[in-house]
């Protein structure tokens, strides 16, 4: 077991983990932050996307020990003071989700996209979320959701 100290959603969490524990399992199993999902085992689907030090990352792709000392934001930490993040609101307004399984990861990728490019074109949005799979929506309402969050709808 290896000690780790990771800031998650504004609080420093200290724990002991097996070195092989994936960050996503650490978040889900040890911190009970089950909003971050696991949709594949090859780092394609993006359901586990979180923000690490402000940038989106697939939490199945790194070990918890590699996140030592970093600041992580998960879907649970996105709303502030009871106010939904604009991306969350955009998904709600535009029917950007159906089963909801890809949604947390999709929203976190959207947050990253808009932080890098606050006013993306439709093509840039489609490219920006192409590391995230959705099997329900056909993506059109997700594109609308990101546009909504960017103030373009």
């Amino acid at each position: 077991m290896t000690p780790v100290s990771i800031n998650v959603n504004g609080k420093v969490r200290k724990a002991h983990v097996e070195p092989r524990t994936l960050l996503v399992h650490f978040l889900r199993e040890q911190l009970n932050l089950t909003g971050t999902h696991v949709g594949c085992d090859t780092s394609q689907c993006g359901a586990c996307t979180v923000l690490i030090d402000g940038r989106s990352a697939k939490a199945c792709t790194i070990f918890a020990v590699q996140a030592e000392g970093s600041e992580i934001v998960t879907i649970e930490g996105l709303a502030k003071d009871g106010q939904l993040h604009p991306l969350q609101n955009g998904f709600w307004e535009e029917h950007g989700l159906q089963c909801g399984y890809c949604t947390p990861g999709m929203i976190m990728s959207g947050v990253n996209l808009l932080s890098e490019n606050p006013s993306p074109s439709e093509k840039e949005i489609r490219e920006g979320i192409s590391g995230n799979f959705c099997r329900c929506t056909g993506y059109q309402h997700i594109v609308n959701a990101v546009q909504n969050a960017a103030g373009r709808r």
Partner: protein
Amino acid sequence: MAAPVLPKLVGQRVKRREDPRLIQGRGTYVDDVKIAGMQHIAFKRSDIAHGKIRSIDVSAAQAMDGVEAVFTGAQIAQILAPMPIGTPFPSPEHRAVATDVVRFAGEPVAVVVASDRYVARDAADAIVVSYDPLPAVVDPELAMTGQPTVIHEGFANNLAVPLMPSGTGVSPNGKSVDDTAVDRAFAQAEVIIKQRMLNQRLVPNAMEPRGVVAHFEPGKGTMTIWSSTQNPHILRTMIAAMTGMGQDQVRAIAPEVGGGFGAKINIYAEEYVAAVVSKQLGIAVKWIEDRSEAFVATTHGRDILGYVELAAKRDGTVLGLKMRLIADIGAYNMLLTASIPTLTMLMANATYDIPAIRTTLTEVFTNKTPTDAYRGAGRPEATYFVERAMDMLARELNMDPADVRRKNFIASNKFPFQTQMGAVYDSGDYAKALDAALVHSKWNELKKERDAAKAQGRLVGLGLSMYVEVCGIGPSATLPTGGWEHAQVTVERDGRISATTGASPHGQGNETTFAQMLADQFGVPLEHVTILHGDTAVVKQGIGTFGSRSQAVGGAALHMAGTKAKSKMAKFAAALLEAHEDDLVFENGMISVKGAPARGKSFADVSQYAYIPVPLPEGLEPGVSEEAFFEPSNNTYPFGCHISMIEIDRETGEPTLLRLVAVDDAGHLINPLIVEGQIHGGLAQGIGQAMIEEAVYNSDGQLLTGSFMDYALPRAIDFPRFELHSTVTPTPVNPLGAKGVGEAGTLGSTPSIVSAAVDALSEFGVKHIDMMLRPEKLWRIIQGGQA
């Protein structure tokens, strides 16, 4: 003070009530369920497609720290009978965990129970299985010869269903077949189109893999089972039967379910195993599928080969259709496996008034993952075969693809229409849908645009497809579970409304659409209505969500229960208001006398009276909680027209979808926003099939496309913005006039894209291209080779 005026909600784009929890990561999916003392299951699976199990050595696994128990197939067989199926076809014995022979790569051979999922996986990896390999067969036409292997004893030539005829001149029991009309049609034909087409195998890939938590409580003798399923009530029935428990002792819960697409109808080996292992050990167990497991352990879809022949006159009039179907169902029959391809036969009539049709169906075992329902389930295959043949006919006759279809439509005054296949289409106006698609796509301008592009040397093509599908499944005669749906509507003491539905959703938004219906029915705010689902302890009875049935059947049951509850509320209100119950109106949170709005009581006041009924009106029981079972008299038959425009890169063969215009007619819509979402999702899967998705096996029976690295799941960049339009032809089959829309998008899109590809490559003389439209395949055609 006057009550605020409440808007009518049915037909409005109401934001979903499911979303606040899901966009904040607060939903509870199966993998989020934790029980004290819960252990984790991992399966050891066969890594070969066909072989005899010579030995299984579990000693290393058993010795590992944290391993609670290991079960071989033989040990599971002692506590679990062979798995049942839900179709009336003969079926070989299917053990949840193989006992002597493995028949597809991925079949379970042993079960590990351990303290956490990592240990369980380690232990499964430590089990050593030796096999005597047998030859594998992956080509259904080869399998039909009985070579190189027979997979199941007693099923000669690997035939699960030897030859089932259907259509004109076939008696309802299939025993007597008269080919006279079909033969005459082909004898009279001026042109005959013949084509072998493959509707290829697909992997459903709901984003949430399957999972199950089983919790047997020894003291109580009860079982609670959480599963990522489309139908918790069917799960309860099956788990009770297979564990020897009563249905009253089993509670099945479908929590948030992360997509299903048909593949979560079947009750799987892993669910049965979790249940019996929990019961055997007296502890809670959890199994969560890896994606790599999902690719082989969750049922696949499609994989039907069609030999299609169309007989027509030179003016485009279709005289007859022959369709010989060979379904590759993989290694075993699952719950609905054998019945899925029968829906392809059922829908062979498509939207056309074809005088004579002969279809035959053969279902074949191969050493692959079993097939079962996948979004559309048999109907996209029928649409694809017929619509591709119609397109080939148009091309042969040099007719506009719209014209050849219009010439053969079932006329709108002929409904209800009895097809050659035994279906009775409820309602339809196919010309209206076609016209809408031609107008909205600006078809004539599109053709000019295509011609101009072609003149510049670009490979641009147009495709058009009609579709009609069978939805709203039941009736009970067509489903082994019964084909009704159940609902209960309770007016609570404070005037709020709780309702349960057996149509357990997994993304369809029933919590919103059903609340819209009840809010309108009772004249109360949407916020005062709660829809409960997915838990057999809360929802008394139900069937589930599949076959585009939740609105057409589940919604109808809810409407019926609501009508009963409203009638009882009216009786209480009539007593309070000293009015006749027929003279009351429910609106704006009030129940008042028609024409005298001042003479009214708040809905909450009447509710309170219903539960403290002093005096109790004569003939009434206290309280308002009413239930209904809705048994549909027929299926619904939604329809539409999809138009595609694609461009193929002359240098690389890469196809790009430029436009997709969809006109869908699903009857009355409750929430157009949600309907659009459903259609978008269906289109994405239909386009995915046409353009990039394909389950590929090698000759050894190994799935080569066994992960997202190899199986192309569509991404956002694969699609243009879809252009949606609708026509409205209500169904007479249910009181809502709603037909169902979940699967529609997968029907028309696929053939329209393939036809567009053929159109784009017309200069190379190509008549048909099998899916998917792999660039290499298109490049070879461009280079002068064959499709």
